[in-house]
């Protein structure tokens, strides 16, 4: 009490405000943090590397029960990833990555460090990709008899990208360029399909130029600006939209130059007609 009575009024108010901010910070019913959400490492063949992922439970009152497991992943047409059981893709991390503990409770307002160890065998090349999931599920007693209830699981992922140092091969091919028909608002899409023939993830990106028949540049658009990837041995279609606006009917060209991480660039050009 002596401390408070001695404080000046504005400082006391600031202290109350800060306290309120802090309590708001912790007020959510459930809050979990995974740090880091991405582990990118280069490992020599025959070597190992390790580290920690910290799982934090911000709930001040309740512990959370966490299960840890690895999934493989693939790209979906919408650009997000789908998750497959470990060991089901050629680029799986399952046989290179050990992680533990795999099941634990995180007490209220505490954190647990989960250790991972990557062992890269000798004689292997390229990259491996996957995700370690940290999943929280409610106890089954949460189901209430006679009620129509859905239990909720929550999982956060930490993406793993492991590259065998000095063995990367960047090989890519621009398989197709196509221009779609304009929609009712006059917006059309330009599609580019890239095949990754290398052994590591490629992130093809670069300018797509629209050129008219007099070779004047009309617009420059960026394809795959977010640098989304193409997994080794797979193809993926990227697209970019353009509003044709006042573009006059006639012959035009699309010119594509993509940087995929290799020594050269991927390039291509096609003509199309606006009616």
């Amino acid at each position, binding site marked *: 009490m002596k401390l408070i009575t001695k404080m000046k009024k504005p400082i006391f108010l600031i202290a109350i405000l800060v306290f309120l901010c802090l309590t708001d910070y912790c007020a959510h*019913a459930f809050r*979990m943090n995974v740090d880091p959400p991405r582990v990118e490492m280069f490992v020599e063949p025959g070597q190992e590397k390790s580290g920690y992922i910290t799982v934090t439970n911000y709930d001040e009152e309740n512990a959370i029960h966490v299960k840890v497991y690895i999934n493989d992943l693939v790209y979906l047409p919408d650009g997000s990833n789908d998750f497959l059981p470990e060991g089901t893709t050629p680029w799986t991390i399952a046989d290179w990555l050990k992680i533990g503990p795999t099941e634990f409770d995180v007490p209220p307002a505490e954190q647990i460090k989960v250790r991972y160890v990557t062992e890269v065998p000798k004689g292997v090349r390229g990259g491996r990709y996957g995700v370690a999931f940290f999943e929280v599920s409610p106890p089954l007693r949460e189901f*209430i008899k006679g*009620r*129509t209830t859905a239990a909720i699981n929550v999982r956060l992922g930490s993406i793993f990208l492991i590259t065998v140092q000095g063995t990367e091969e960047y090989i890519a091919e621009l398989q197709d360029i196509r221009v779609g028909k304009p929609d009712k608002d006059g917006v059309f899409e330009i599609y580019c399909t890239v095949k990754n023939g290398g052994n590591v993830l490629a992130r093809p990106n670069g300018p797509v130029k629209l050129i008219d028949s007099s070779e004047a540049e009309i617009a420059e658009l960026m394809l795959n600006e977010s640098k*989304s990837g193409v997994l080794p041995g797979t193809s993926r279609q990227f697209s970019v939209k353009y509003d044709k606006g006042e573009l006059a009917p006639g012959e035009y060209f699309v010119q594509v130059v993509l940087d995929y991480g290799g020594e050269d660039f991927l390039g291509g050009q096609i003509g199309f007609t606006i009616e």
Partner: protein
Amino acid sequence: MNPVRFLIVFLLIVLIIPKEVFATFDMSIEGNYKTIDFGAMELGEEKKLVERGGYEHQFNFTSDNGRTWYFKAQILRPFTSMTYTIPPENFQWIVEELINGQGILSASVSKPAPFSKTPVLIYTSAGTDEAGTEVQIRLKYRLKIPENQTAGAYTAHIRFIMVEEL
């Protein structure tokens, strides 16, 4: 030490140091985060859960890792009672509101979308979503019991996912 100075130093330590140490990639749920409870329902009944005034759950996402992340939902087990199952498409999520997000919702606001056994994209981040700004997504849920469904105590299991893109 002067008590006021002590308080200021203490608050600086509490407020600044933890924020410098930890990377943020977190998800929180406001509302009943353990279950979605439709209560007792009749055959043929359709119910929409909006317990918190227009929505059932508020999902909060914060990431400062500078990478695209997404929010997905998946049904692990549809509403089942013994061997009887309510078709998964009868259980739907609806975005009521997106707050602070600069990214893309996969379904328009107020447009119902069914849960699916494969993870369904709800939101893809962009811009300040990846630089520490908290994104809030408010969801409500709808369930329709078919007229010819066998009576029973039906339970389901769903999963919400937050993960960065590869």
